[in-house]
């Protein structure tokens, strides 16, 4: 075998599956060449167009940031304010589709063919999908959101437990607390995971069962037919690369700022561009090592380490926090979520615009803009599961973990806010809004604050690494035309490129503008996902069960 090439074919043994009969050969539009010592196997035109467009956008944003920033902000605000109903209703459709898949016979279809066996253990699989999906958000919003919604958002008109002077109104506390938790869990529970599940399941189905390349466009074969391999497909893939890279790079930039704020809070390391650039370089280098070690030796190992550190921190907060209250709150919060999820999911006849548009619609656009990345990654590691098993594990279990996490972090923070007017969480969320410090504020009022805050910073950084490495693999696969065995140098390129874009935006400004643009891609992708729901049912219907 030639040394610089590797492999071909697909897995064994899979049993019966209903293949799509297409003349398209995976990689037929690819350019295979060598640049210096590096081999390239890239899709034409997806690689070049997405790469050059990203460079152009970064350049234009840096050059005209005062003009560009407001445009993207306005676009995002317009979408979430005027189309909030569309995002919210679409979110409901995705949850319903997933629930239907669990209860109907379609749930018996196995991803990868009737006899396919799972590629990963439950722990490895779950660690990877959770770390890629929302780990970092839980760190940032786990304390902030429950407290903020309880105190300020008034979801569904439930009044705040504080008056204008910040004094506690006892009779409002119970309802506001329950609603604060229910609203937070609504944003981190079934709905976001249903979005990921729809993308992941459709990709896995059309790739592992139907034999199409593992890339976004394949889901649209039932709709576009052979045109999927032309420009309609190119546009979908380019958009997916775009959303993924800007989503990752802007998150990396903001993440470095948050980690730096944490380092200043804990160790007094001043917030500076230099510190943040060093953090981005550090995260990128670890992510590079991870992608070069591959899916099993790098990404999976880091994800598992990540999950274990997160579990330890969770356990510590439960033990050091108001343990008995948290235990009973877990069930109370599940109940509050079950009670409020339907009213919160209804976009009409409500007056909580700030919450519904500013938080819910924004979140839904955000989850959806991330869904090509997370969905593709989940799809890649989910072969061998039945559809029912897949949906339960991607939808129900992560949602329960989110409830547990929010109960522990948010519940502890709420207790601190309600019982101690001088608590640091109250300072950073209510008195002087500093969201990046909310987690550290909560930990500061628990024992061993220095140690746990340090662990929290490490966790934030590792969560970024696990997003960055899996994201680089996804972009690499899309820009290689769905080949998961493209030369390693390409994933190294994308991982480095992501770090460079993050540094350029951090130093030159424009993180917010491009994040707003990345979130705005949530709108076209919502339409894409609705079509994917149709494609899932159509695809599953023909599969042997």
């Amino acid at each position: 075998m030639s040394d610089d090439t590797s492999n071909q074919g697909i897995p064994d043994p899979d049993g019966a599956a209903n293949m799509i009969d297409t003349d398209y050969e995976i990689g037929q539009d690819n350019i295979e060449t060598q640049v210096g010592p590096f081999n390239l196997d890239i899709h034409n035109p997806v690689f070049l167009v997405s790469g050059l467009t990203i460079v152009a956008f970064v350049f234009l944003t840096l050059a005209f940031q005062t003009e560009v920033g407001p445009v993207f902000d306005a676009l995002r605000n317009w979408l979430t304010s005027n189309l909030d109903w569309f995002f919210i209703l679409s979110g409901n459709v995705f949850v319903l589709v997933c629930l239907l898949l669990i209860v109907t016979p379609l749930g018996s279809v196995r991803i990868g063919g009737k006899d396919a066996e799972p590629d990963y253990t439950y722990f490895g699989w779950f660690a990877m999908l959770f770390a890629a999906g929302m780990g970092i958000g839980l760190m940032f919003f786990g304390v902030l959101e429950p407290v903020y919604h309880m105190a300020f958002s008034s979801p569904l008109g439930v009044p705040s437990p504080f008056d204008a002077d910040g004094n506690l109104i006892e009779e409002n506390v119970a309802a506001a607390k329950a609603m604060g938790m229910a609203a937070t869990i609504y944003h981190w529970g079934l709905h976001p995971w249903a979005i990921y599940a729809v993308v992941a399941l459709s990709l896995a189905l059309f790739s592992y069962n139907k034999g199409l390349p593992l890339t976004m466009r394949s889901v649209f074969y039932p709709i576009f037919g052979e045109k999927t391999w032309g420009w309609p497909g190119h546009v979908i893939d380019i958009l997916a690369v775009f959303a993924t890279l800007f989503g990752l790079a802007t998150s990396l930039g903001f993440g470095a700022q948050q980690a730096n704020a944490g380092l200043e809070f804990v160790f007094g390391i001043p917030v500076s561009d230099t510190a943040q650039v060093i953090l981005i370089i550090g995260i990128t280098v670890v992510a590079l090592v991870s992608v070069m070690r591959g899916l099993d030796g790098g990404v999976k190992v880091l994800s598992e380490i990540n999950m274990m550190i997160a579990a330890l921190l969770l356990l510590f907060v439960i033990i050091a926090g108001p343990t008995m209250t948290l235990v009973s709150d877990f069930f109370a919060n599940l109940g509050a979520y079950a009670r409020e999820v339907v009213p919160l999911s209804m976009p009409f006849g409500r007056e909580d615009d700030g919450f519904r548009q500013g938080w819910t619609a924004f979140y839904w656009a955000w989850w959806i803009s991330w869904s090509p990345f997370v969905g593709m990654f989940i799809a890649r590691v989910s072969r061998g599961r039945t559809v029912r098993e897949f949906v339960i594990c991607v939808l129900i279990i992560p949602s329960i973990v989110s409830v547990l996490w929010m109960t522990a972090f948010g519940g502890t923070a709420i207790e601190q806010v309600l019982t101690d007017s001088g608590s640091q969480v109250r300072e950073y969320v209510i008195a002087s809004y500093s969201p990046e410090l909310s987690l550290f504020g909560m930990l500061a009022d628990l024992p061993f604050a220095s140690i746990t805050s340090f662990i929290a910073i490490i966790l934030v950084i590792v969560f970024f690494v696990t997003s960055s490495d899996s994201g680089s693999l996804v972009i690499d696969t899309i820009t290689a035309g769905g080949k998961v065995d493209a030369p390693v140098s390409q994933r190294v390129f994308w991982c480095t490129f992501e770090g460079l874009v993050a540094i350029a935006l951090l130093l030159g400004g424009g993180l917010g503008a491009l994040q707003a643009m990345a979130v705005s891609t949530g709108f076209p992708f919502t339409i894409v996902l609705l079509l994917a729901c149709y494609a899932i049912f159509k695809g599953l219907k023909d599969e042997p069960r």
Partner: protein
Amino acid sequence: MFKKILVPIDLRHPDALEKAISATAAIAKPENIPVVFAAVSTAAPSALAHNPDELKSKMAEFAEAQGRQHGIDATGQAFFSHDPSVDLENALLKAIDETGADLVVMATHVPHLSDRFWPSNGGRIASHAGVSVFLVR
């Protein structure tokens, strides 16, 4: 001298395999040593095959054609890896164990600068396999 020969192949580049297969035949034929042609594949559809049966039949056809052409006892097998771009070496080491081969004949490129950073697959197999490895340039 040998009981079984494993020949890793990449069906996308048949031209690059000729020399290695000829060398294999030269060793295998006089003593009628069985030869296993091994392909390492991803867990997703790829350039060569849309489904397992397609790959299996391609491997069987390839082995049969080579066996006929060179007069050797040849079979084809596929081995699977989650991320073969980086795990190819592990998959091949596993293939050596599973097939019981005691000689690997493998095509490899002439070393260049990048091999200082990314050693060739052949080089890594030679470094880590417990059996004889014959690298053909």
